[in-house]
């Protein structure tokens, strides 16, 4: 091997090696907030060019698992970690709410462009496989004047471990006893019917391409892809269309009574204007971070996220955190050692 080749190879290795001053932080988890997270990490990188936060949207289940395996520096999930999962972690895990979002029933029915109204019974029936055709009375009853076809409903759900699934099944468990006992709530459940898509992206993709389908996705995925979505009847009996106002209304009660560990469910929340399938989504941060530089970067990012970062929420159809929650979280950042 000639000297030149050796030098060239060494140069290649050096060029490919890490600059000592760059921070590479790896995170993974929920697809629900992926649009806002990818925007945040991009913006933060512009402000702090030496910090790269590489977020992979593999689903909330993946975020929790990779965090527990310690293969990522922090995780993200729309379903808070259960007590068993927290026990499995070798260090304490802190939940930091980031945004509020809506899980919406999006659908693709050729010929139906308007907004459909869904009752809790209809949604539970569709996803249980009991309501099989679009013109079933359970659906048409709430939508007089809309011509629904006598076609089979194609149900689309998640094939991966998902916080969006957790939110959806959490809601269905609250409104349907049959769902609660038969299927339950989790990031991954035994779906009675339907096709599985990977990530919010996969479900949106399937709904968009499959006529007569219905799937649950985070609001922004329906909006960005021009997929119609319907309104849902809330606990007080009002049909509320998913929106920032509806989500904020759902969070209003929780804002003042937020538990210290920030784990709370706001599905089927009381209140006239509340959208019933809303949720916080959390970043899962270990309470102890060994790498000092990473710790500084993560804490700084959290602080930025709670203040300047919140301005990016609404253009992407996520609701900002309530003031009380922000204040509480800012205090909680200090808990990261």
């Amino acid at each position: 091997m000639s000297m030149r080749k050796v030098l060239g190879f060494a140069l290649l290795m050096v060029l490919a090696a890490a600059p000592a001053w760059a921070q590479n932080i790896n995170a993974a988890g929920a697809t629900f907030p992926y649009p806002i997270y990818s925007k945040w990490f991009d913006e933060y990188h512009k402000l702090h060019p030496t910090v790269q936060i590489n977020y992979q949207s593999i689903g909330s289940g993946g975020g929790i698992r990779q965090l527990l395996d310690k293969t990522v520096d922090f995780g993200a999930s729309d379903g808070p970690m259960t007590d068993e999962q927290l026990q499995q972690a070798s260090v304490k895990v802190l939940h930091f709410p980031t945004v509020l979002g809506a899980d919406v029933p999006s659908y693709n029915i050729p010929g139906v462009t308007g907004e459909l109204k869904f009752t809790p019974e209809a949604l539970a029936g569709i996803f249980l496989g009991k309501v099989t055709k679009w013109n079933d009375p359970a659906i048409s009853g709430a939508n007089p004047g809309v011509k629904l076809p006598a076609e089979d409903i194609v149900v689309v759900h998640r094939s991966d471990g998902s916080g969006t699934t957790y939110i959806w099944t959490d809601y269905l468990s609250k409104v349907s006893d049959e769902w609660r006992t038969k299927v339950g709530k989790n990031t991954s459940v035994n779906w009675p019917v339907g096709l599985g898509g990977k990530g919010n992206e996969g479900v949106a993709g399937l709904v968009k391409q499959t006529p007569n389908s219905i799937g649950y996705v985070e609001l922004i995925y329906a909006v960005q892809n021009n997929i119609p979505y319907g309104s849902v009847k809330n606990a007080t009996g009002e049909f509320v269309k998913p929106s920032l106002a509806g989500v904020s209304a759902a969070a209003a009660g929780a804002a003042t009574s937020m538990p210290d560990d920030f784990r709370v469910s706001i599905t089927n929340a009381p209140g006239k204007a509340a959208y019933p399938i809303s949720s916080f989504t959390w970043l899962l941060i270990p309470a102890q971070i060994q790498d000092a530089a990473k710790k500084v970067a993560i804490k700084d990012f959290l602080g930025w996220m709670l203040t300047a970062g919140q301005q990016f929420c609404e253009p992407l159809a996520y609701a900002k955190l309530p003031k009380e929650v922000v204040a509480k979280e800012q205090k909680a950042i200090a808990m990261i050692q």
Partner: protein
Amino acid sequence: MFWRKSVNVLMLSLTGLCALVAVSVLFFILGYLVYHGGKDVNWDFFTKLPKPVGEAGGGMANAIVGSSKLLLLAALFGVPVGLLGGVYLAEFGGRAVPFVVRYTADLLNGVPSIVIGIFAYALVVMPVHHFSTFAGGFALGVMMIPIVLRSTEEFLRAVPPALREGAMALGASKWRTISSVVLPAASRGILTAALLALARVAGETAPLLFTAFGNRFWSPGWGQPIASLPVMIFTYAVGPYEDWHRQAWAAGLVLLGLVLITNIVVRTLLSRGTSPQRP
């Protein structure tokens, strides 16, 4: 007789049709990729990083570099092991050990790539709690080993005994014979087999899903997660964004183009030389 003659003509045409259908699939694939992806293979594609989700534009520069780094690692790991192992099988081996080695190499070759990914996850990712380029390269390298091993053995065996005997008659030791005479004689075949193996693993997605993981940015060094073309194609294809779909087509065209060009060049060189080998 007429019946038999017409059956003859019929079957001739039918089998010819089968061959035509099989071959035209290749042209269909190429055609669709060029049609859908051609216009999006532009400067941006090769030089820009991915944009935030939902925003149009951006490219796959990090994935292209990522795939290159992964393949470099795969070759660094797979080729020496396969080459030297093949030398042992062809030149030194007895009965028992080579049989076991060949058997396990064939076994390893038949393992589905997703299982290799799980293996690499358990062996390389878990102990250090880190997804990395290194883990991805390892997984791909493991897939290359059996191909390089068996090809090296075949090509070494195909070297005429006269060459060996000539070297030994001049007083060369066994190793000298191998390194100076036999290996160079077989080198073209071995190189082509290694390139074909590389082209094969270049398109593998499954083993990278939980080893190299993925990266929206540049991946410095070898210990960080890294983006790769096949994984990007998969991620973008199953997503809902039109922009993602366009980029997936473009990436598919680039990937397939590279794989096919390597295969065409290498196989042409090979068929002009030693006996045809299926890698």
